[in-house]
């Protein structure tokens, strides 16, 4: 019996394959999200075109505003890349918030210490500490997922809360990291030697976004060209098949979750060493979750993370200007972000449905032929 199996035609171009799928989907999602956002803005009584142009101006109108976008993008790029590699492996490593807190406390602890070392070494030590701390934070969910089959979504989210309150406790007096006599619980300020340089006068632009972009490109290359990356993609496409092909599936899961945790930690370090200079509760409220949205918007493609992280931070940065000039509340930007992600998911869902339907007609035929009885 002949059963030509056809993949859905929707946004699929022969030859471009994966790239077209993961690259085009976010663009369509962003377009639809902005379109739906425009409707909402119009409903709230403003002119959508005015609102969007105010937003654009707020985000890209001056070198300072561009710098602001890049500063906001830094944690989204770094942590988002970590979430994205998880998605590629079929794992929802959405504990970025927690990893960032863990990384921040690691980087903070080393950064606060007055070490007799040159600045570059101090910074590297602090960054190393953040990566280690983030990975340690990922240890429990990763082990539970890989070796005990516990759903990583639940564990990573729960670990987020633990991290947030753990950090809060760490910066409360009388813990040694806490700033004595401060009006708000916070850590001591990091040593000047651990502070990252500003890249632009009159802004708080630190090198975090560069690290983020490099990390995204590196991850893309790793996924495509290394054994680790190929195993990761195999795992994401077909876990059963991966085992059959001789891959140690559990170990691979563990490693992928570790990478995500380490990246999350790194993102936390750059926030502290480059921007906040102190660790305190809510120092990145919600950014970790936003990083998940960024990775989702990118469909797990690390290169897409660059685009979607920049897009999200531009929305956020431009939101204030939009609010001042047109009276549309800044939370509208969050609504638009959410709409974009939802559209991307909807497109992916629609496509999977079509695939499943195609597979099902095929299976039914086979079932009759073979699994009857």
């Amino acid at each position, binding site marked *: *019996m*002949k*059963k*030509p*199996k*056809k*993949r859905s035609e929707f946004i699929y171009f*022969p*030859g471009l*394959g*994966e790239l077209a799928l993961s690259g085009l989907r976010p663009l369509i999602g962003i377009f639809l999200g902005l379109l739906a956002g425009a409707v909402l803005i119009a409903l709230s009584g403003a002119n959508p075109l005015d609102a969007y142009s105010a937003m654009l101006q707020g985000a890209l109108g001056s070198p300072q505003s561009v710098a602001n976008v890049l500063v906001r993008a830094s944690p989204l790029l770094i942590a988002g890349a970590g979430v994205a590699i998880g998605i590629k492996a079929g794992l929802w490593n959405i504990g970025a918030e927690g990893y960032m807190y863990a990384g921040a406390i690691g980087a903070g602890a080393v950064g606060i210490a007055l070490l007799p070392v040159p600045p570059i070494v101090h910074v590297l030590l602090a960054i190393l500490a953040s990566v280690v701390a983030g990975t340690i934070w990922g240890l429990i969910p990763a082990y539970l997922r890989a070796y005990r089959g516990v759903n990583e979504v639940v564990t990573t989210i729960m670990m987020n809360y633990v991290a947030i309150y753990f950090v809060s406790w760490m910066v409360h007096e009388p813990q040694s990291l806490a700033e004595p006599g401060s009006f708000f619980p916070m850590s001591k300020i990091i040593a000047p030697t651990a502070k990252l340089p500003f890249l632009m006068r009159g802004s708080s632009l630190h090198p975090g976004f560069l690290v983020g972009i490099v990390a995204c490109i590196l991850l893309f290359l790793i996924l*495509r*060209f*290394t*054994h680790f990356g*190929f195993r990761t*993609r*195999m795992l994401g*496409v*077909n876990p*059963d*098949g991966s*085992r*059959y*092909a*001789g*891959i140690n599936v559990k170990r691979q899961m563990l490693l992928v979750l570790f990478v995500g945790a380490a990246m999350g930690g790194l993102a936390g370090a750059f926030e502290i060493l480059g921007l906040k200079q102190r660790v305190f509760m809510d120092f990145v409220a919600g950014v970790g979750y936003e990083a998940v949205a960024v990775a989702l918007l990118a469909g797990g493609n690390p290169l897409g993370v660059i685009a979607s992280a920049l897009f999200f931070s531009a929305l956020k940065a431009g939101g204030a200007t939009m609010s001042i000039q047109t009276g549309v509340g800044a939370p509208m930007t969050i609504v638009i972000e959410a709409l974009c992600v939802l559209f991307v998911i909807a497109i992916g869902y629609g496509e999977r449905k079509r*695939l499943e339907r195609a*597979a099902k*007609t*095929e299976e*039914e*035929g*086979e*079932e*009759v*032929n*073979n*699994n*009857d*009885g």
Partner: protein
Amino acid sequence: MAQDNELALRMEGITKRFPGVLANDNINLDCRKGEVLGLLGENGAGKTTLMNVHYGLYQPDSGKIFINEEEVKIESPAKAIDLGIGMVHQHFKLVDALTALENVILGIPPEHPPVLDLAPARERLLKLCEGYELYVDPSVEVWRMPVGKQQWLEILKALYRDARLLVLDEPSSVLTPAEGEQLFKAVRRLSEEGRSIIFISHKLGEVLEITDRITVIRDGHVVGTVPTEEATQRELARMMVGRPVVMERKPRPALPEKQPVLVMEDVSANDDRGLPALKDFSLIINAGEIVGVAGVDGNGQRELAECIVGLREVTGGSIRIQDHIVDRVIDDPSFVGFIPEDRQKTGLFLDLTVAENLVIKDFTRPPYSKRGVLQYDAIRKHARNMIREYDIRTPSGEVLVSNLSGGNQQKVVVARELNAEPVLDIASQATRGLDLGAVESVHDTLLEERNRGAAVLFISTELQEVMSLSDRIIVLFRGEIMGEVEGEGADVSTIGQMMLGQVSEVTG
């Protein structure tokens, strides 16, 4: 057993077609009130499809269904239940997280919503348990119940809805012999009450024991209906498997000197549920021979293949391949080539390209990888060679495997597994779902492998291909070897009987 000649069910000219398959071809079948009707047939004969039509899960392409001599249209299971039809599927349809009682009342609108009628329902359920001696604890969650109890629960669920016509699909496959006895008792009881039972099975013994009449289905047709009293095992076996075909064996050179490649000694292994699937299984396969494994699906074939390649842990015994002890997953296709039974779920990565799929076991080895970096030029070149050599119909190696037809997908697996000339080939249901041309190509490839000197294990539920391809045939039944025959001049009905669990006095 109580029965009169009134018909509870009559199916007339039922035809059901799936893309490329004629599952039911003009089937006529009837079942009297109070009768136990056996529905006998091999895997894939169309029994389950027919009953799914009957239960409203499928709509027939043509044909009529009469319940109590009244024509009905069963467009959904809800309608079927209304008509007094109950069905116990081979794969249970229970909600694991709910209790037995909750499963029973699931879908029945309560009398005083939103309050569930738990107390009266419980009483009724217990009364049913009592009446048919099928005991379940109403307050235990399904996931904590042993499979036998789950079977009882499925039956009770149908009886709670007062099913007058009960379909049992392979009900004994999960039961212990003692539980089987209990089931038979309950079935007799049901028929005494005037209920009709359609008993689907491929096990001859039990069908002969419990039924009043037997309808045999083969390849979507009714072969015949016989009163159980007049039926004999031999005749039924012939009706089931005996195709009117001349077994055409492929010509082949004689076996060279015996050189054992695969040596299995007293191997035992469990299935996914932890139940024994292979029992003290011993087998030797020599270089240059094809050993066919015949048997009804689910008798340990999958576990056998998985044990050999190290995917499944053995609970006893040893497996050696050319003096190499199998203790972990073998992922080297130049040693063992393995065509797994489910190519889409196991053998292929549908969302990777053809080229990538061809190297999933080899990507860490040169020339596909140098200093840890994948060499896509080499991978693509390999893909071009394989596409040419194995005649894989694809625009290029850069196309996702999911775009290929079933036969071409299988060619990708075959190319990957056999191209490196392994010492042992394992082909598990390798032709399942393929069209005739693709089947032929798989057969030819395996025969070439044999002639090259590879040891080949050919596992298939299609008796015909096992007989035409194998040098030796073993028959697997419940994880044990029921018998072994030479491929040359093997007798269909002998093998057919062994497949159904009967040791034959004549071998070869």
